[in-house]
């Protein structure tokens, strides 16, 4: 099994889902292809324990060909993405089967091919080590993601998707121009070679600024988050889960790979602090906006705007301390990456639970969820457990990640980031408990007596993801070790 299979399996699945007979076959092929990708990822994860795998696609070596780069980080990220996609796929088959008419099948026929292309794009992005290859994967991911948003019957979905697409197109223009300048400055596209050849200068800084600006739009980092809340809140619940948990995270993953690896030799402490400051602004702004929302899905979407900030606070924690503090920096790095995985599980669980609640109620206004705990206890607890991870309470995976970030901030004496992390945790607790408080209070006397029945599968899958984010706190040692070994800092810079 080589890394190429990670991309080939979902692509073949997408093509197969287009040609098989309509109806149940499409769904079967879709779920099977995601399951197969997850198994490939698991096999690859076991094989990567020893060493990083480099796989030149089609036998063409870099710099002419495209090399896939499967190090510990990439493979763990691919495994997390595949598992989340698999669980969400099971949720999606239950979600779509509630509407079994010809319209329902039409939506599903459009869903599965795009869903599998999205998975292929995610895998290509995580396994790429080449700036231009990353561009292609980013575009493929955007196309699939926008297509999935418009599957929603909600009225605002088309407008939200259009805005998402235009923002993403602007981001890709900046990124592509940046990559072109990067090639002009270094004569390389492969990230290792770029890092080795990159020196300061106007051209290099223009390239860094443009690629970063393009990726910031795709990461939805405050103040470039304007497209995210509506697109994520209007999409069908399984799509929201993948967009918020994985698609945004994949863009952040690329940006971190660039900044902490290829750009690291020329990044100044001031630039790193600036990225951290943007992250801090995102944490605070997103958190306050989340508390102010009236709708459950918009609240969860703004929570993504907030959580994105943590990965930018990671940049000064990894780059700024002196070289002597390599251990602190490596701990911050592995903690940040672990947090990204925990966030993927937790955020997907939150959107799936919110989708189940919205299905039962017929709407997702927060004032309306009062007393839903007695009707949908599993979804309510899934929301609560995933919320624990977001807040960073022990024993969740979010706690491990945020604790390592906090420890690195203290050890490197960057007190302002300690304050940011604490404030972020409080804001997160604010909006999580706001919803939980409503869900668990007694139903109002004018509450509807009748709820739309929700398939048990939808509730159980949401719970499974929430529990996964929780148990990541117990099984942290081994993944953290692998992540530390895959740290860009170990390259001796």
């Amino acid at each position: 099994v080589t890394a190429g299979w990670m991309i080939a399996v979902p692509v073949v699945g997408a093509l197969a889902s287009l040609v098989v007979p309509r109806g149940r076959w499409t769904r079967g092929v879709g779920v099977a292809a995601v399951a197969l990708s997850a198994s490939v990822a698991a096999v690859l994860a076991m094989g990567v324990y020893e060493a990083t795998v480099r796989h030149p696609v089609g036998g063409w070596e870099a710099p002419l060909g495209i090399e896939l780069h499967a190090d510990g980080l990439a493979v763990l990220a691919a495994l997390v993405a595949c598992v989340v996609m698999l669980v969400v796929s099971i949720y999606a088959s239950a979600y779509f089967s509630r509407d079994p008419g010809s319209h329902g099948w039409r939506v599903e026929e459009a869903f599965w091919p795009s869903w599998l292309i999205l998975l292929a794009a995610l895998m290509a992005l995580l396994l790429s080590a080449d700036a231009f290859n990353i561009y292609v994967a980013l575009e493929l991911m955007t196309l699939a993601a926008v297509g999935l948003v418009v599957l929603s019957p909600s009225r605002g979905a088309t407008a939200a998707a259009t805005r998402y697409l235009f923002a993403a197109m602007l981001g890709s223009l900046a990124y592509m121009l940046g990559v072109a300048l990067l090639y002009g400055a270094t004569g390389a596209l492969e990230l290792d070679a770029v890092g080795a050849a990159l020196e300061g200068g106007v051209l290099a800084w223009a390239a860094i600024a443009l690629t970063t600006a393009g990726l910031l739009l795709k990461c939805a980092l405050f103040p470039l988050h304007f497209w995210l809340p509506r697109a994520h809140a209007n999409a069908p619940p399984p799509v929201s889960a993948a967009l918020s948990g994985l698609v945004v995270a994949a863009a952040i993953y690329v940006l971190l790979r660039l900044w902490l690896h290829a750009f690291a030799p020329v990044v100044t402490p001031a630039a790193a602090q600036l990225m951290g400051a943007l992250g801090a602004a995102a944490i605070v702004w997103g958190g306050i906006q989340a508390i102010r929302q009236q709708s459950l899905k918009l609240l969860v979407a703004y929570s993504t705007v907030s959580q994105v900030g943590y990965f930018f606070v990671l940049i000064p924690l990894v780059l700024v301390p002196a070289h002597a503090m390599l251990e602190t920096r490596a701990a911050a790095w592995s903690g940040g990456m672990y947090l990204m995985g925990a966030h993927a599980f937790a955020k997907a669980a939150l959107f799936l639970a919110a989708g189940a609640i919205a299905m039962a109620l017929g709407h997702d206004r927060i004032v309306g969820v009062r007393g839903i705990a007695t009707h949908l206890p599993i979804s309510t607890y899934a929301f609560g457990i995933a919320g624990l991870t977001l807040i960073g309470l022990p024993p969740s995976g979010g706690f491990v990640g945020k604790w390592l970030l906090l420890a690195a901030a203290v050890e490197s004496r960057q007190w302002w980031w300690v304050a940011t992390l604490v404030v972020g945790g409080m804001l997160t607790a604010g909006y999580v408990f706001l919803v939980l408080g409503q869900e668990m209070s007694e139903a109002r006397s004018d509450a509807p007596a009748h709820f739309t029945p929700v398939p048990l599968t939808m509730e159980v899958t949401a719970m499974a993801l929430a529990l996964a984010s929780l148990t990541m706190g117990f099984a942290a040692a081994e993944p953290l070790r692998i992540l530390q070994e895959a740290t860009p800092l170990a390259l001796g810079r």
Partner: protein
Amino acid sequence: MISTRIYLVAAVVVLCIGLFSLLRQSDLVRRLLAFNTVTSAIFLFLVAAAHGDGSVAPDPVPHAMVLTGIVVAISMTALALALIRRLQEQGEETAVAEPGTREDER
């Protein structure tokens, strides 16, 4: 040498025209055209830069990037046009506000 420079300058001029209308236009179709203009400018720049001073063979890597970029730009344009059409259809049926005029709920 001089002809390469003409192309590079032309690319910058086209880029400025595209960016100018990108910022000025509120109509989605016009904005999409502006996007395509900017994209073409970037492609022109890349091909011209790959040509160098003409004394050595042109660098093939930027050409490959342009080819891929064209495919991506066409796919993006097609999807954007489909979305704009759907918006117009919905606008006739449901008379929702024009896209982009509504800001996020704050």
